């Protein structure tokens, strides 16, 4: 006989359902306590942003071709640390100077740090990229509401020159900003503080190691073929080639010969033009060489006197296509220092693995 227990059963209180808000908060805490998956590391490293939302497909492609597996990707542009927000931004004026001319000067200005095989290239930079979350619930296929914001960070990367030693990556998250024309979502504040990542060797030499880059073609024609050889998915071959140019320069150290070849090859990509009013994330003014893709002009910025690389920027030139106001900045970076170190910091990173 279970009568007493049945009475208790029948007296089971009715309860109100778990509120969506509380549930989302709990789930977010749970997934936030899950250490982020190893960030894809490689060519698209700078563009990779993990937007945590486990049963949600997160997609964020601002600049085409920078895709890296399961992580949303993003990309490049300049900026206005100096001028602030989008107040001072005007549409880029296309200069009379040709891309060939600017890139030719950049090619002639190249230097080489000549790191030893056992040394490390250290690059510090400041970055701002768009994080765009959209997609659908994996299980139900229902679309989720698109959200956008600009995430900012200061980065220091140590790359083994010959790719045989573990590198390190330090990321200091800076205050996020609203993506022009979009409300800033809560998840924009998920990543804070400073994060250290170990960049493990995993048995194969990285494509971005100095010695790997040294094996790339040293002539413009060969380099051009290399730029166009990459699989660019749905993007036009020219857009893909321009993306490849940025990828070879970002947080790497391209040897002098290859760097000169790259700049010469880049000048031959259709649609590449020059603007003299570009500014990088550190507020440094320079000459922008860029190309429009998906409503955004993607500039690589050079020092107007030395033709040294300053940074990148993304500026909206087609409001409709970019879904952001004309002239607004949606990406901005500055390469602050490049140097050679004998050692990389040892990072105790339990998530670094070779899976």
């Amino acid at each position, binding site marked *: 006989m279970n009568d*007493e*227990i049945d009475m*208790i059963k029948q*007296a089971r209180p009715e309860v109100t359902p*778990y509120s969506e808000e509380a*549930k989302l908060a709990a789930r977010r805490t*749970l997934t936030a*306590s899950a250490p982020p998956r190893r960030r894809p590391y490689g060519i698209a490293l700078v563009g990779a942003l993990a937007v945590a939302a486990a049963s*949600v497909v997160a997609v964020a492609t601002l600049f085409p071709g920078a895709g890296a597996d399961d992580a949303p990707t993003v990309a490049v542009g300049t900026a206005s640390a100096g001028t602030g927000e989008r107040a001072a931004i005007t549409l880029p004026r296309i200069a009379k100077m040709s891309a060939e001319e600017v890139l030719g000067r950049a090619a002639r200005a190249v230097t080489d740090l000549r790191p030893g095989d056992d040394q490390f290239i250290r690059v510090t930079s400041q970055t701002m990229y768009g994080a765009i979350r959209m997609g659908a619930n994996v299980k139900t296929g229902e679309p989720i509401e698109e959200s956008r914001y600009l995430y900012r960070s200061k980065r220091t990367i140590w790359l083994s020159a010959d790719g045989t030693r573990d590198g390190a990556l330090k990321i200091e998250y800076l205050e996020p900003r609203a993506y022009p024309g979009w409300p800033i979502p809560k998840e924009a504040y998920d990543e804070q503080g400073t994060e250290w990542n170990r960049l493990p060797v995993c048995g194969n030499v990285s494509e971005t190691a100095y010695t790997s880059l040294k094996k790339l073609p040293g002539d413009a024609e060969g380099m051009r073929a290399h730029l166009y050889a990459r699989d660019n998915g749905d993007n036009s071959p020219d857009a893909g080639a321009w993306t490849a140019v940025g990828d070879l320069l970002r947080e790497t150290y391209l040897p002098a010969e290859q760097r000169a070849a790259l700049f010469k090859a880049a000048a031959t990509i259709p649609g590449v033009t020059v603007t003299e009013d570009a500014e990088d994330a550190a507020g440094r003014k320079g000459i922008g060489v860029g190309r429009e893709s998906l409503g955004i002009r993607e500039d690589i910025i050079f020092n107007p006197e030395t033709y040294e690389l300053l940074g990148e920027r993304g500026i909206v030139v087609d409001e409709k296509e970019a879904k952001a106001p004309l002239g607004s900045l949606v990406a901005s970076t500055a390469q602050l220092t490049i140097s050679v170190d004998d050692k990389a910091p040892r990072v105790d990173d339990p998530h670094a693995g070779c899976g």
Partner: protein
Amino acid sequence: MVSSAAPHPWGLFTTSEAEPSGPSDAGLIRASLDRPEEFAGVFDRHSDEIHAYVARRLGPELGQADDVTAETFLIAFRKRHRYDLTRPDARPWLYGIAGKLISGHRRSEVRRLKSLARAAGGADASGAELHEEERSAERASAAAMRPALAAALARLSAAERDLLLLVAWADLTYEETAEALKIPIGTVRSRLHRIRAKLRRHLHLSEEPAA
């Protein structure tokens, strides 16, 4: 085995019922050892059910059920390395964790039960003052919980309530209850026997209880 999981109030995540062919809980937990985010699947399956159970025991006040549910899954997540992967259903394990947390709120559970017992001018005289939200909460559940039963539940020990309510409110089988409480199934049976006797006494029931 009847699941007491409420239908999902929102569309973003689906329940296990909706996807009977998916991986077992153990499968998700195993996967989460390498890919921690997989653990969200366990949350999506069982959080409604755990929340309902906690809310029944602690009441809807002050978001306690929300907090305890969130903590239950966080603790589960941290302890997932120690989960017995031979057990496909994680519910007993989750209930066990939730039960321990509820014990930490024993005083508020007992206070709630006592207030329910007083709701209809019940016998309990230990009259703590009630806040207005507790009053409205008690009015809401008074219909479902007879004051005499609430009083009887309040007089059980915490361990006894744990066991009884896993069976009566969480619909766990004796086997699952044993697993949740980490006690032998024989102990479940003998304790339930004792609990029944206590209830009968507290409810002033004769050997043939009124239906």
